[in-house]
């Protein structure tokens, strides 16, 4: 029993230097990309935070990241087989599900914005010239976990493709 207590204390102090939102971001992003590659729509939808659960929307919109569509708008587009469905889940060669390697070894960029206790991560996959790079997944740290807030499409930033 003392050994267990010692190990717990050791784990606590070894984790104390780390930032919880940051440390769990890579795991969230990996789960997100895996659901895209496997076209697991049910799990993908479960990542979205319900629009009503988003706290202090006005403060979030004041932060320097794009938040044009709320989670309901994005999921509605999927349901209608709209642009988000075509760009992420479809069988087109340019869709993210077709483009990302199943191995999980792909370029990824996290842009993290902080304002007081609010932390938002904008995640982009693929090299700058890839189709995947044009999609920006915006995740919100709320209630001790990452949830998907919105997705932005930004073809202009994807360079010449």
């Amino acid at each position: 029993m003392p050994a267990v207590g010692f190990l717990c204390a050791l784990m606590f102090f070894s984790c104390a230097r780390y930032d919880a939102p940051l440390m769990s971001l890579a795991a969230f992003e990996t789960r997100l990309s895996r659901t895209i590659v496997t076209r697991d729509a049910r799990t993908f939808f479960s990542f979205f935070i319900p629009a009503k659960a988003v706290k202090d929307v006005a403060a979030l919109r004041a932060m320097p990241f794009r938040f044009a569509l709320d989670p309901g708008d994005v999921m509605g587009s999927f349901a209608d087989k709209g642009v988000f469905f075509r760009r992420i889940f479809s069988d087109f060669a340019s869709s993210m599900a077709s483009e990302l390697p199943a191995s999980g070894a792909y370029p990824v960029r996290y842009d993290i914005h902080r304002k007081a206790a609010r932390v938002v991560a904008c995640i982009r996959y693929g090299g700058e010239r890839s189709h995947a790079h044009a999609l920006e997944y915006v995740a919100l740290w709320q209630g001790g976990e990452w949830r998907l807030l919105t997705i932005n499409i930004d073809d202009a930033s994807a360079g010449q493709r």
Partner: protein
Amino acid sequence: MRPYAVIIIVLLACGCTNESLSRKRAMIALYSEAITAAADGDSAWFASRSIDPGILTNGFRTAVRSNEFTSFAYDPEVDADRGSVIMPAAAGGYWVLAMNFDESVHRWRIIRIEKSGR
């Protein structure tokens, strides 16, 4: 295809995924340690990693304390052994933490912290 071949392929796929995730996590962990050490003014942390502790007196610490934006880039397609973290400097420009993955000890090292831009 023989069953053992399928098992090997699955194991290789899982291995690649876990390797990629663990590298990303390890990179973030090192960054997290570095900014905590900078915020605390822990010069011993930097010295023990062969980084000039003088970095704490030239604006990096201020940037860490007021940091509202950080950008991580990890690109295994181009070079799996390199990563970078970018954060804005208070007086303009950016701080760049360049990292290399040391295969021999299987961990990231900060090879350079420098200010770029204005």
